[in-house]
């Protein structure tokens, strides 16, 4: 395949513009991607983009970067995927580096130290907030509640590495659903609300 540098640079630049908007969560990117990729450039159809977002969630990594990579691949294959990914990554990388450098320079400054004393509890609040948000879709039956409590206890009281805990989640999820099928129990894979959303989405298409 001949390399279409013009197309690749367009992909890179499009995602370069969208990248900085992904402030605190990739979902803020959805309308912008739609405008740039569907309406302005006409690279993809609206349906393709919603497909991409659904898929991006099921792959490890940040939703914003994953979506960009999927879209880049649809437009121009592997090279397109790499360009879209780098385009999304680049601006935020620069900002992070800028802020980090600033903090390194100001290290030891009295005001900065006091500011961080205030920021640290806020970071804990931010993590609690993220936990509250995800618990709404994660915990919806006795099994998921039990799993959350069991795994939290393991994390708190055993030295098991968090990566092992995540991998065990994949195995437990598949195992529990298989077991429930064998026992003939009613299976609900997602919280009621999101199931409904999927059903109406399928109904529309």
């Amino acid at each position, binding site marked *: 395949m001949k390399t279409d540098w013009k197309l690749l640079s367009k992909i890179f630049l499009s995602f370069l513009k969208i*990248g*900085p908007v*992904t*402030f*605190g969560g990739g979902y803020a990117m959805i309308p912008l991607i739609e405008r740039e990729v569907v309406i302005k450039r006409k690279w993809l159809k609206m349906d393709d983009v919603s497909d991409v977002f659904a*898929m991006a969630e*099921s*792959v*490890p*990594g*940040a*939703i*914003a*970067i994953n979506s960009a990579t*999927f879209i880049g*691949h649809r437009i121009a294959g*592997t090279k397109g*995927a790499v360009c879209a990914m780098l385009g999304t*990554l680049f601006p*935020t*990388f620069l*900002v*992070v580096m800028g*802020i*980090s450098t600033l*903090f390194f320079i100001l290290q030891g400054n009295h005001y900065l*130290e*006091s*500011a*961080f*004393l*205030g*920021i*640290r*509890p806020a*970071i*804990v*609040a*931010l*993590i609690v*907030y*993220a*936990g509250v948000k*995800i*618990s709404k879709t*994660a915990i919806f039956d006795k099994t*998921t*509640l039990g799993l*959350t409590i069991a795994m939290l206890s393991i*994390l708190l009281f055993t030295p098991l590495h*968090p*990566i092992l805990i995540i991998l065990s*989640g994949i195995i*437990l*999820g598949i195992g*529990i*659903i*298989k077991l429930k099928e064998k026992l003939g129990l009613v299976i609900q*894979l*997602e919280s009621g609300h999101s199931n409904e959303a999927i059903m109406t989405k399928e109904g529309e298409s």
Partner: protein
Amino acid sequence: MLLQLFFVFVMIGAVSFGGGYAMIPVIEAEVTGRGWMTTTEFTDVIAVAGMSPGPIATNSATVVGYHVAGVPGAIVSALAMTLPSLVIILIIASIFVKINQNKLIKSAFYGLRPIVTSLIIYAAIKFAISNGIIGLDFSFEMLKYGGIFLLSLVALLYWKLHPALVIVLSGIIGIIVF
């Protein structure tokens, strides 16, 4: 050192399910375990990562990389963190599966989501302890930390303030009260 950073973040990138916050305890375990940083220093990394646009886990990796090995460290960490996603996406895209509708994947996420929740709660407890917000000896400082914590939580949950704004505002409060 760069090789170590690459290896650590490729590993973390491959298991980054369920939004960046679940990766906080994973990155924390790695960086404190290797003696690169203390948990309190890592809290400041999250602060910088949360103030910047972009995904919090990738941003944290960048800051850790920068702290450990300068600009090359930052570049290696950011790329290592996104490499597994890139590879997985290329594989999925080339075999044309709609993975989000696959039952096996859905079952995996049935188990993953609660675990992501416990990881985040665990991170919150661990950070609260290491930053002196909860502890055995009561102090006046703890009261101030607790106050900022509650105020931030209310701001996020009920006033729906943007996380980056909450970080900046808490910094200003910190300058005033400490």
